[in-house]
C-alpha cells in the first residue's frame, strides 16, 4: 500500500498514493471488509464503503456521549449524542455513500477528545495508551489532526494558567506529544512535517512548559521559601540567556521559509486573507470560503443559539473537562468562521456545549417543578467552585424573601450570586453532587437555590420541547433535501410534482468509457478528476488530490490560452480528449465558465504570461458577452463551451446565443474550432467532450486565417 504508484492519474507524473493520501479511511473500510469475510459474511466491498460513514457517525455519537459524560453528566451526554446524531453539518459527510476522509475523521477527532478528557479525569496510564492509539488513528485519517495538536497544548497552557496543573494532565499530555509525534512521523503523507512544520511547535512548547511547571512546583515543595527564591532567580537568569539563544535560532529557522514554516491551509486559518492573496488553489475551493451567518443556522440550527449558554454553563462550574469543552468550542467556532469546511469540527463542539446548557436548564426547571409549592423554595447542597465565590454575597444578602432586600444581580451572564446558607429553609432538594467538587468548598459555600415560578418552568419546558422538535424537523428536512441526492445526478422539481433528472455527467463518462481507447488521456479541470478516473476509467491529467500545483496550473494555462497554444500544451501532455462542463443551456451555475477565473488565477500563479486583468473588462467585471475582452473570447474555455451554442440555443430556447446562467447573449456567436473537434455533447449540453486533433485543420494556416484576422479587425 505505501508504495502503490498510480500511473492512471496525473499523467505523465503519476502519483504515489501512499505519500499523498491519508490512509485511515481506506484502512478502515479494508479492515471491515476483511473482518466480515473472515467470518464468512459475504458482503461486497462497495457496500462496505457505502456504509462506513454512517457506521462511524454512530460511533461519533457514542464518543460525544462519552465526552460530555466525562465533562458534565450522563444526561447531558445523552442529549449530546442525540444532537450529534442528526446535526445537518455532520450528516453532509455521514450519509451512506459518502466515502470521504471526514466520514471517519470526525469520529476520530471526538474520540481523541473523549480519551483525553477521560485520561485527564482518571490519570490512568491505560487510558493514556488508548489516547495515543486513537490519536494515531486520527492522524491517519485526516489533515485536521493539526487542530488537535494545537488545541491540546492550548488546553495544557490554559490549565497551567488557571492553576489546574496536576499529574493527571501530565499523564494525558506528555505521552501524546512524544508517542503521537512518532506515530505521525511514520505516516508517509505527514512524515517529517510532524516535527518540521510550525503547526506542531506549539505542542513541543507546551511539552516543555509542562515539564518546567511541574519541576518548579516539585522544587517549591522540597525547598524553603527563601531557598526557593534564591534558586529561582539563579535559574531565571540562566534560562533567559538560554531562552534568548534558542528563540533566535527558532526565529531564524522559521523566517527562512516564505510562509514562516506554516502550511498554506494553516496560514489561511491564522490570517484569513492569506489564501485569497497567495494560494488560489486553496481559495478556489468552495469549501474553503468563509461562511455567512445563514450557513451557521442552516448547519447547526438552534444549537448555535444554545452553545454560548453552554460556554457559560461550563465556565460557571469550571472543571478540567468543562474547561476543555469551552476551549474546543471557541477554537472550533473561530476556525469555522474562516473556512466553511471546518463547520464539521465545530458541529460536535456545539452539540456538546448545547447539551450541557440544555441539560442544566432542564435540571433546574424540573427541580423547581418537582418541589414547587407556593412560598417555598428549594435549596441544594450544590456548590460553586472557588471561582464562583468571587461574586458571592453581592446579590441576595437575606435568605428570607423580603421586598426590596435583594438587589438585582447585574449582568445576567456571569455574576454568580450566592446566598448564605440558613437552616430554616424547609424543602431542600439535593442536587447530584458532582464528583469534581471538593468537599471543602461544598461545606463552606453551599448556595441555596429557590424554585422558579411554575409558569416560567412550564413555558420553558414547552419551549425546550418545541425547539427540540423543530431541530428534528429541520435535520430531517436538511438531510432529505440537501444531502440525500447524489451530487453527480441533478434534479429539478417539475410543475406536476415530479422531478426532472439531469444525468449528463454519467452519460458523458459512460461515453468516454465505451468509445475511447483504454489508454486515452483525458484532460479537464481538476474538480472532475476523481470522477473521470472512477466512472470513465481513463487516465487523467489532474485530479482532486491537488498535490502538485504546477501541473494543475498547466491545465489552467491551457484552458486560458488561445486554441493553438492550448493545442500545443495538450499535445505535449499526450492528451487525446478534453471535456468541459457547461451549464449555459440549462442554467447549471457551477460550470467551468464560472470557475474559469480560478483557472486563470492558478495558471497565472505559475505562468506569469497569464494575467487576470486580460480576462476582465476594464471595469474589472468578469463577462463573456460583447463587453468581454478579446483574450477571454479567444480562450479555449470560451470556445469549447460555446462552440455551436448559438444554433442550439436558438432551437431550444428561441433566444439566439443567450446564456441562461449568465443571463445575457454571449460575446462571440460564431465559434470556429481548428485544433479540436467535438466528439460528444451530452443531452443537456452539460458536458462537452472534444478530441484534440492530430494536426490542425489545414485552412487556418492559409486563407481562412487571414480572412479570420480581417474579420476580427472589422469587428
Amino acid at each position, binding site marked *: 500500500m505505501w508504495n502503490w504508484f498510480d500511473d492512471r492519474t496525473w499523467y505523465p507524473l503519476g502519483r504515489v498514493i501512499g505519500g499523498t493520501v491519508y490512509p485511515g479511511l481506506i484502512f478502515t473500510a479494508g479492515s471491515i471488509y476483511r473482518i466480515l469475510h473472515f467470518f464468512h459474511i459475504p458482503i461486497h466491498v462497495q457496500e462496505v464503503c457505502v456504509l462506513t460513514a454512517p457506521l462511524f457517525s454512530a460511533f461519533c455519537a457514542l464518543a460525544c456521549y462519552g465526552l460530555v459524560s466525562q465533562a458534565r453528566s450522563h444526561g447531558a451526554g445523552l442529549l449530546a449524542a442525540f444532537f450529534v446524531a442528526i446535526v445537518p453539518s455532520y450528516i453532509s459527510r455521514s450519509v451512506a455513500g459518502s466515502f470521504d476522509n471526514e466520514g471517519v475523521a470526525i469520529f476520530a477527532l471526538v474520540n481523541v477528545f473523549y480519551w483525553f478528557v477521560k485520561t485527564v479525569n482518571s490519570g490512568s496510564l491505560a487510558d493514556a495508551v488508548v489516547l495515543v492509539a486513537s490519536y494515531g488513528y486520527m492522524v491517519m485519517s485526516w489533515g485536521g489532526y493539526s487542530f488537535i495538536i494545537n488545541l491540546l497544548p492550548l488546553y495544557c497552557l490554559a490549565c497551567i494558567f488557571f492553576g489546574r496543573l496536576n499529574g493527571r494532565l501530565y499523564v494525558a499530555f506528555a505521552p501524546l506529544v512524544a508517542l503521537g509525534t512518532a506515530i505521525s512521523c511514520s505516516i508517509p503523507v505527514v512524515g517529517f512535517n510532524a516535527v518540521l512544520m510550525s503547526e506542531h511547535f506549539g505542542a513541543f512548547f507546551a511539552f516543555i512548559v509542562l515539564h518546567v511547571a511541574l519541576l518548579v512546583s516539585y522544587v517549591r515543595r522540597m525547598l524553603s521559601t527563601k531557598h526557593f527564591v534564591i534558586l529561582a532567580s539563579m535559574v531565571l537568569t540562566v534560562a533567559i540567556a538560554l531562552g534568548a539563544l534558542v528563540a533566535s535560532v527558532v526565529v531564524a529557522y522559521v523566517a527562512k521559509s516564505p510562509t514562516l514554516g506554516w502550511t498554506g491551509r494553516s496560514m489561511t486559518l491564522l490570517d484569513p486573507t492569506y489564501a485569497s492573496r497567495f494560494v488560489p488553489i486553496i481559495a478556489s475551493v468552495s469549501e474553503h470560503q468563509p461562511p455567512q*451567518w445563514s450557513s451557521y443556522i442552516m448547519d447547526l440550527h438552534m444549537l448555535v443559539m*444554545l452553545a454560548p449558554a453552554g460556554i457559560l454553563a461550563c465556565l460557571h462550574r469550571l472543571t478540567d473537562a468543562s474547561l476543555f469543552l469551552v476551549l474546543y468550542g471557541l477554537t472550533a467556532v473561530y476556525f469555522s468562521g474562516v473556512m466553511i469546511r471546518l463547520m464539521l469540527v465545530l458541529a460536535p463542539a456545539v452539540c456538546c456545549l448545547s447539551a450541557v446548557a440544555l441539560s442544566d436548564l432542564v435540571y433546574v426547571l424540573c427541580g423547581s417543578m418537582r418541589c414547587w409549592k407556593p412560598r417555598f423554595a428549594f435549596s441544594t447542597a450544590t456548590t460553586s467552585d472557588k471561582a464562583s465565590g468571587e461574586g458571592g454575597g453581592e446579590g441576595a444578602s437575606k435568605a428570607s424573601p423580603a421586598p426590596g432586600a435583594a438587589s438585582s444581580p447585574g449582568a445576567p451572564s456571569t455574576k454568580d450570586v*450566592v446566598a448564605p446558607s440558613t437552616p430554616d429553609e424547609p424543602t431542600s432538594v439535593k442536587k447530584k453532587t458532582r464528583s469534581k467538587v471538593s468537599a471543602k468548598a461544598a461545606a463552606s459555600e453551599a448556595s441555596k437555590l429557590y424554585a422558579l415560578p411554575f409558569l416560567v418552568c412550564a413555558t420553558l419546558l414547552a419551549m425546550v420541547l418545541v425547539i427540540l422538535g423543530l431541530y428534528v*424537523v429541520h435535520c430531517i428536512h436538511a438531510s432529505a433535501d440537501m444531502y440525500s441526492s447524489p451530487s453527480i445526478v441533478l434534479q429539478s422539481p417539475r410543475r406536476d410534482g415530479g422531478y426532472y433528472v439531469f444525468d449528463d455527467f454519467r452519460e458523458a463518462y459512460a461515453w468516454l468509457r465505451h468509445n475511447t481507447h483504454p489508454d486515452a488521456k483525458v484532460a479537464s479541470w481538476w474538480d472532475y478528476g476523481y470522477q473521470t478516473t472512477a466512472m470513465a476509467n481513463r487516465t487523467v491529467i489532474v485530479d482532486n488530490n491537488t498535490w502538485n500545483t504546477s501541473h494543475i496550473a498547466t491545465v489552467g494555462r491551457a484552458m486560458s490560452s488561445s486554441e493553438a497554444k492550448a493545442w500545443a500544451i495538450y499535445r505535449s501532455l499526450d492528451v487525446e480528449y478534453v471535456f468541459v462542463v457547461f451549464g449555459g443551456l440549462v442554467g447549471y451555475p457551477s460550470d467551468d465558465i464560472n470557475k474559469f477565473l480560478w483557472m486563470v488565477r492558478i495558471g497565472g500563479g505559475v505562468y506569469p504570461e497569464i494575467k487576470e486583468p486580460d480576462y476582465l473588462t476594464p471595469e474589472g467585471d468578469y463577462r463573456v458577452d460583447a463587453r468581454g475582452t478579446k483574450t477571454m473570447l479567444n480562450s479555449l474555455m470560451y470556445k469549447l463551451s460555446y462552440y455551436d451554442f448559438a444554433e442550439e440555443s436558438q432551437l431550444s430556447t428561441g433566444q439566439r446565443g443567450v446564456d441562461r446562467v449568465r443571463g445575457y447573449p454571449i460575446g462571440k456567436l460564431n465559434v470556429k474550432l481548428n485544433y479540436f473537434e467535438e466528439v460528444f455533447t451530452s443531452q443537456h449540453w452539460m458536458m462537452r467532450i472534444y478530441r484534440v486533433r492530430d494536426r490542425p485543420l489545414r485552412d487556418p494556416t492559409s486563407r481562412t486565417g487571414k480572412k479570420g484576422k480581417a474579420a476580427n479587425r472589422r469587428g
Partner: protein
Amino acid sequence: MSRVLLVSLLSVLTIFRLISASPDLSELYALRDQTRDAVVLLTDDVLTQYVMGRNRPYAVAIYFSAEQVSEGNPSLRLDDLRKEYGLAAKAFAKGSDSDKIFFFEAALETSQRPFAMMQVNSLPCVIRIPPGLHVSSSTVELGRNDKMVPDTVGTHNYPWPAETFVEFMGVRHGIKAAEIDRPSIYKSPIFPMLLLSGLVSLAYLAYKVYTLSLVQHPALWAVLSLVVFWFSVSGGMYNIIRGVPFFIRDRKGNLQFFLTGRQGQLGAEGFTLGTLYLLVSCSIAFITFLAPRISNRILRDTLSLIGTAVAAGSIYQTFMLWTMKTGYRHVLHV
C-alpha cells in the same frame, strides 16, 4: 572708436557668457546641502538660474505640491509621496552620479511659474527634464516618459515608493543612485535594548496581572468567549475577507441592513443575528444559574419571566429573520 568697440565686445562677451555658460554648480550643491532631504525648493530665482536655459549638464526632477490640495484631499496621500520623493533624492545625492540629477520641489504657494510652464493642473505630478531639453519661459512640452502621473506609472503601488522614483528618474537613464536609506526604528542602535526592555517589562507586567488573580476569574473569560463566539457566528470573518459594508443604501437612499436571497450578507445582518443568539443564550444562562439564587421571590419571579420572554422572543425573531433571508420554512418530511 576703439573704446566703443571694446565696450561692445565686452558687453557681447558678457551676454554670450550669460547665455551659454553652464550655471554655477557649486552654488547648487550648496543649496542642496542646506536642505533637509536634498530637495531644493523651486523659487523663481532658482528656476531661472538652474532650470531654464538651452541645456544643462544635469537632469532636473520637479515635484509639484500644493498645500491646499494635500490638505483638502488626504486620500491622495501626497505627504507620503513627498517623503518617498525625498528618500529618492537623498539616494541620488549620496550616489556616485550626484552631479547628474537634481531634485526640486515646486510649491504652488512659493511660485506659480513652474506650474504654468510645465502645464501642471492636477496632482500628483512629478516631472523629469532631460539635460538637453530647451527650457524657455514659455511652456515646455515633455515626453510621456518624463512625466510621473497616475496615467504613466499606474496606481497599483501608489503612493509610489522611492524605488519607483529612482527607477523612473535615474536608472533608466543610466544614472546610479545609492541604496535608499529608509529611516527605521530597526536600524537604530538602541533598538535591541528597547526591544529587550520592552519584553522584560511586558513579562513583568504579565506576571503582575497574573498574580492579581483577576485574570483567572471566569467572568472575564466568559465575556471574552462570548465575544469570540458572537463574532464568528455573525460571519465576521466573511465580512473581513470579502470586505462587505455594514449596510448599504438602496436606490431611494434608505438604509438597507438586510440582503434577501442566499447570496451575500451585510455586516449588520450578521451581527444582528449573532446578538440574537447571545440574547437567547444569556437569558437561558440567567434562568439556569442566577434566577434560582435570588432570594426575593417577587424579583425572582419577575426576572425569570422576563428572561423567558426574552429567550422566546429572540428564538422567534431569529427564525423569522432566517425565513426572511432564505425563504426557509420548517417543513415536516414525514
